């Protein structure tokens, strides 16, 4: 469904991604893990063309979207839940959702809105509140809801666990699981390797802008190298707390 080939991205001479290739099949839940600064956000942003690509191609559903503008990419059926959620904090929850459906006809937006409020009841309860007043977890739900408003076939998720308490992280992942089971394709990037790999079918490991490992999520979870580099640290942090 999504095929990213030999992607190179640099920020003014500083290479952030080198020869990154990632593919996601229809209906798959794929997680890409990597530590802070590995280039995860850069990967998603360059797929969406928020950040320019230096080299490489992105094919989505057989269409070459490499050079599409962001808004065109959204129309073609991809949506991004950005890092840090980035809800419109001075707009109401409902307005945020409405903006997510900016490219969609009004009637469809109305139906979609009902659907999303059913899925995330808290967004309905707080519909008229400013999004900036929501808790981190609620904002994450809102960011997901907003992305779903464009009726995407693939959802790109950037670091959904960032800054959230473990229980809330679990809640967010459970929602993603429901979405995946309903047939939505998901490409998720995370530092929180254990959660990301637990819910995914397949995974990649990104280090210093290169893919260094890939395979079944369960195999990566059991891999000694992954344990040492990505899971070990988390376990240690848990101990220290």
């Amino acid at each position: 469904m999504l095929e990213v080939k030999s992607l190179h991205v640099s920020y003014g001479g500083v290479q952030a991604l080198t020869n990154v290739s990632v593919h996601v099949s229809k209906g798959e839940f794929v997680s890409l893990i990597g530590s802070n600064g590995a280039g995860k956000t850069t990967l998603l942003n360059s797929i969406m063309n928020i950040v320019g690509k230096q080299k490489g191609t992105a094919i989505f559903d057989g269409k070459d979207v490499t050079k599409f503008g962001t808004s065109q990419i959204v129309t073609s059926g991809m949506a991004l839940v950005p890092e840090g959620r980035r809800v419109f904090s001075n707009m109401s929850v409902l307005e945020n959702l409405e903006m997510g459906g900016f490219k969609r006809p009004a009637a469809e937006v109305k139906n979609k809105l009902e659907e999303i409020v059913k899925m995330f009841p808290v967004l309905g309860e707080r519909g008229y509140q400013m999004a900036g007043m929501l808790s981190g977890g609620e904002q994450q739900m809102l960011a997901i809801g907003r992305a779903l408003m464009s009726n995407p076939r693939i959802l790109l998720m950037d670091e959904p666990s960032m800054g959230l308490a473990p229980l809330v992280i679990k809640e967010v992942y459970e929602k993603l699981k429901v979405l995946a089971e309903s047939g939505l394709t998901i490409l998720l990037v995370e530092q929180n390797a254990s959660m990301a790999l637990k819910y995914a079918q397949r995974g990649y490991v990104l280090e210093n802008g290169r893919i260094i490992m890939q395979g079944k999520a369960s195999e990566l979870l059991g891999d000694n190298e992954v344990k040492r580099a990505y899971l070990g640290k988390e376990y240690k942090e848990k101990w220290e707390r």
Partner: protein
Amino acid sequence: MQFLYSGLTSGSVYGLVALGFNIIYNTTGIINFAQGEFVMIGGMLIYTLFAVMGLPFPIAFIGAVGGAFVMGILFEKVFIRLTKIKNELNLITVTIAASIIIRDLAMHFWGRDSLPVKEFIPVFNIQLPGGVMSSQSILVIAVSLFVAFGLNMFLKKSKYGKAMRASFDDPIAAETCGINVSNIRVMSFGVAALLGAVAGVIIAPIMFVTYDDGIMTGLKGFAAAILGGMGNFGAAIAGGLLLGILESFSASIIPSGLKDAVAFIVILIILFVKPDGLFGKKKVHRV
């Protein structure tokens, strides 16, 4: 009371100009020092369409503000779009250069003389508690408030108005929603020019129109925006009215030749004492 009434009249014009400053500040983070030129353009266009060509006022009005809207869009597409490195300093410099070019062009088209525009409505005085107000002044205040209200409704209720607010709030998130933020920026220049032109049209019969009106009007609108606090539409109108009233009252204590200095004293006091403006929120840093 009389001072209050005349202050409200000029103040509502400052308020409209301040709104224009705010819209562009919100979408681009810059102060558009050519904002005042659109007030002059509005006045000049109404002079040409209404006073010279004799078109019915409603048509001339639509022509003048519509013309300014298009010019605002062209302004963005030429001056802002072509600036290679869009940092704040460069963009502000470009707006200052553009304002001088617009002024010079206006001088060539319309000459150096002050041009009269006749009233659009019957002129009569209305007796109010403690003073009188002309029907003209009331029209100015009413139109300004109506336009400010209309802008508010546009931003709150319409799809494109909401997209504009989303783009103010977080341009990158707006892009991910499929909103083309650079189109929104173009539109914001059009809307700001339109607001300026409305101010220019309604004030034209009260003050003559001169090619260099834009400097003073622009700076006073800027002072009103600073006084209210940048980035806040309600505060822009309030800042405008307050500045108009201050100016008007000051005329009773200082020589009238110094009236224009009030706006600059206000800018200085605000920047020294309360840089976020009277009603401003703490600035959020843009990424």
